[in-house]
């Protein structure tokens, strides 16, 4: 039974190439998403009303519009509306998923900053630190342990979201599976569809576990910084 469950080396090769594409998408989206989360999360707490307002608009919009519709807008509409002449599916995927992630991450960052005890802010004022210094040296370092657990979950959600790029023909894991399924009639090496999808699901599961372990590692490291209680 096991040797029926396993795919041929050639089929695994295809899946591996698809996995590499998925990894690129998640890395790019994570980078953009984290950048937006930090900027917008802090902006939500700004003293200036218009900064808060625009951050809120971004968050509501990028969250509310759902990743898949945002992806299609990014790929089909944006290039024409801005006269870009076209956009690579990889770029569209990273932009859509990254902006979507940033909206959710911004709320995590905001909540964490607000969870840092007020006394820390007051001590910083008493020491005459600027707002920027307070944020960088006092508040954010204490916010990070609070950010990490939900942020890890968010990253896994975005990893799952990368499967959507298959719908704009980017050859990630999902697209590879769809293509292999379609080609099985012509192929001299027809793939067993249920096993194909199960193998694909397992690859995603492994990637998700890797992300989870990385975040657990980060959580342990930052817990050390605060010293044992």
């Amino acid at each position, binding site marked *: 039974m096991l040797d029926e469950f396993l795919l041929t080396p050639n089929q695994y090769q295809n899946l591996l190439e698809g996995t590499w594409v998925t990894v690129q998408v998640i890395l790019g989206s994570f980078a953009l998403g984290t950048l937006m989360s930090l900027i917008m999360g802090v902006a939500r707490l700004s003293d200036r009303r218009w900064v808060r307002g625009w951050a809120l608009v971004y968050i509501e919009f990028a969250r509310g519009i759902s990743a898949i519709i945002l992806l299609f807008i990014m790929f089909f509409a944006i290039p024409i509306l801005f006269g870009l002449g076209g956009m690579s599916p990889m770029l569209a995927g990273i932009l859509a998923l990254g902006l979507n992630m940033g909206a959710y991450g911004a709320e995590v960052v905001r909540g964490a900053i607000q969870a840092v*005890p007020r*006394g*820390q802010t*007051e*001590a910083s*004022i*008493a*020491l*005459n*630190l*600027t707002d920027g*210094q307070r944020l960088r*040296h*006092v508040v954010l*370092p*204490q916010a990070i342990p609070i950010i990490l657990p939900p942020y890890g979950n968010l990253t896994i959600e975005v990893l799952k979201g990368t499967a959507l790029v298959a719908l704009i023909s980017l050859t990630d894991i999902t697209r590879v599976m769809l293509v292999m399924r379609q080609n099985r009639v012509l192929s001299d090496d027809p793939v067993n569809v249920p096993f194909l999808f199960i193998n694909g699901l397992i690859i995603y599961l492994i990637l998700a576990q890797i992300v989870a372990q990385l975040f657990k590692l980060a959580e342990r490291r930052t817990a050390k*910084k*605060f*010293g*044992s*209680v």
Partner: protein
Amino acid sequence: MSQIEYADVIPRGAAAVEMRQVTKAFGELVVLNQLDLDVDPGEVVVIIGPSGSGKTTILRVVMTLERIDEGYIKIGERQLYHEEKKGELVRASEKHIRTVRSDISMVFQHFNLFPHMSARENVMLAPIKVKALSQDEADEKAKALLDRVGLGDKLDHRPSELSGGQKQRVAIARSLAMEPRVMLFDEVTSALDPELVGEVLNVLRELAASGDMTMLLVTHEMGFASEMADRVLMFDRGRVLEQGAPDKIFKDPDHERTKSFLKAVLSH
């Protein structure tokens, strides 16, 4: 951008802190009611009174943790919340407030040390970031100050590894590192176990005895007050009820309210 001019702010003769008609309300509740208060340079003033009387708020508006609704506050020759523009007093910019604030520092009831930094780093942070000291200069200064408060051997300990009394002494060293002219102490021993109170009071004693530091303390430590205070203020419902030398206030107060408050506090 982060460097501030540290001119000699408080020339001889001027009050270190001057508060006039200061009013502060939280919604309907008026916490400071047209308060007038002067503190001389080097003076040690202790504020006592029932909880809810607003005495902590006095410290907080001087430290700009709360903003005043009416009146003004001067630190030395300079207005804290106002600027002079073409001979008129207008609401000050944040930049101006920051400049004047550099002469004030505060020690909190719950220490508010930075938990992710060692004692040494806690003391070093602000001098490096705000006064642009070099790493080495700040380090030397931190060592000296922590020595002075008796924690020379705890330089690299995290706050979580220190007792309450030790934490508070680090907090005092941290404030001293900014070389303020006015220091505010908000019930700094109230959160401590009784046997740790003494070590903090010793540091405060030394500070008060030097005569250099203008100190405003809100505290329940009447013994300390009668020993070290130049003046004691009885604060009640947003106003100064009475003030005078410690002997006068503690032994022979004018007001009934003061008498009953002292009776309640001193009877345990």
